[in-house]
């Protein structure tokens, strides 16, 4: 177990985002220490994906701070003052945060190996053959060493998601975000993806996982967060969260997913 005196690796404070007149995130606060796994539950439309996209710097927050390893993300230091980072600066900061999507979003025009190697070569400027070696190794790690020359359309959903995990992992991010990684999968393919995620957690990867898989949250998460209409309404260790949820909305949500 990680002692609680350690500084958080990632902390989010007062994070807010609106689309037009709709306030989707209403000032969210939480933090995660290195090696921790947080599971996020919440009804569809409660703003979970929006929060992950903000942390991954895929969209700009209206308000609030994201601090990763002591560095504030989304801003650039210009003459001693924090100003909004440019697209290029954001691209650079995104290297430290990995993201796995519900729909996998593998690049259909590349085989599995090149999906994993692409960002290594063009973002991290690793030499081509070294990148391909690292990619092959990462595909081995997710159990797809024998599928490296298959194109996404030739892989099952579960295999595609494992390639997507390898693609994020190969860049060695400090934190990995998962947005309902098994929601688009047939039930019989969910297990293979969860197994990979569990082994990452066991290896000490820091992960934030939006999921409806209660079993996974119970087994793997250090803490479970309940999202409701743009706010975190409950936050507890799995035993407390599932055993004696404090909030009425949490109880009602849990009675629906089980």
């Amino acid at each position: 177990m990680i002692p609680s005196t350690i500084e958080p690796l990632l902390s989010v404070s007062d994070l807010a985002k609106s689309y037009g007149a709709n306030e989707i995130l209403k000032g969210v606060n939480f933090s995660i220490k290195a090696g921790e796994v947080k599971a996020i539950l919440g009804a569809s439309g409660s703003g979970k994906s929006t929060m992950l996209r903000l942390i991954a710097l895929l969209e700009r927050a209206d308000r609030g701070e994201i601090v990763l390893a002591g560095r504030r993300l989304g801003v650039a230091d210009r003459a001693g003052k924090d100003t909004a980072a440019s697209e290029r600066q954001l691209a650079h900061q995104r290297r430290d945060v990995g993201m796995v999507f519900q729909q996998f979003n593998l690049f259909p025009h590349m085989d599995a190996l090149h999906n994993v190697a692409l960002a290594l070569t063009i973002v991290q400027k690793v030499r081509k053959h070294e990148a391909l070696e690292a990619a092959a190794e990462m595909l081995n790690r997710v159990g797809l060493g024998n599928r490296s020359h298959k194109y996404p359309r030739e892989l099952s959903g579960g295999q595609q998601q494992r390639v997507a995990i390898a693609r994020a992992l190969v860049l060695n991010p400090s934190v990995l975000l998962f947005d309902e990684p098994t929601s688009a999968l047939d039930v019989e393919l969910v297990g293979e993806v969860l197994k990979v995620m569990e082994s990452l957690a066991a290896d000490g990867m820091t992960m934030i996982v939006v999921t409806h898989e209660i079993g996974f949250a119970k087994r793997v998460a250090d803490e479970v967060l309940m999202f409701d209409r743009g706010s975190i309404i409950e936050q507890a260790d799995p035993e407390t969260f599932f055993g004696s949820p404090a909030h009425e909305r949490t109880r009602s949500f849990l009675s629906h997913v089980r």
Partner: protein
Amino acid sequence: MNFDFSIFWNALTSLNYVSGAVLAILLAVLAMVLGTVLGFLIALARSSGKRWLVTLSGVYVGVFRGLPTLLILLLAWNAAPQLIPALRSEAYSPFVAALISLTLVQAAYMAEIIRSALLSVDAGQPLAARALGLTPVQTMIRVVIPQAIRIAIPPTGSELINTIKYTSLASVISLRELLTTAQSGVSTTFRYAEFYAAAAIYYLVIVTVVTVVQSQLERKFLWTSKDLPSASQPEPGTVTLDLKGTKA
């Protein structure tokens, strides 16, 4: 008057027709290449979100899709030199005038093809690329454009075929492409059928070649491992049985 096969054959194999065909192909291909480059810029302008760029590019597409190509050729060849003295030089040949006209027209059509191809790439693709740290330009070049090309190939093939046929309009500005060649044969012999038929054969052959190349290209964009050498051997089991089943 019967169809005189030897007149037809002499026309078909004459150097005039070959050079007419070469000129038509050169004009069409150049107009398509330049039109695609210009069309790409117009497509970017149309989806830039900047109001004046969107308006300007919208007007461009409206004008060049709206005017008959024949009128644009006549404007470029006859009207433009009256207004712009620099165009009265020798260098402004019928070929140059035709190339400019067809390029301007094709740019308008290609802009629409490219814009809709870019729009139809799944939004999750650039999102995933950006999440990996790719810059906007890298995202465009490595992820979005390759997928847009696949979508744009069939309509672009049709546009190339259209352009090849549109080169015949340049006969009105006396460019010695295929139709002008046929016309000059006709004007001395009045053998319409033979000279026109020879031109028709050239167009059909050119268009057939374009069609074949297009389907080869489409096969390259299937994005499966089937065409890899290692996977090309028939696999044992159901695959082989299926093949036999379809042949029977």
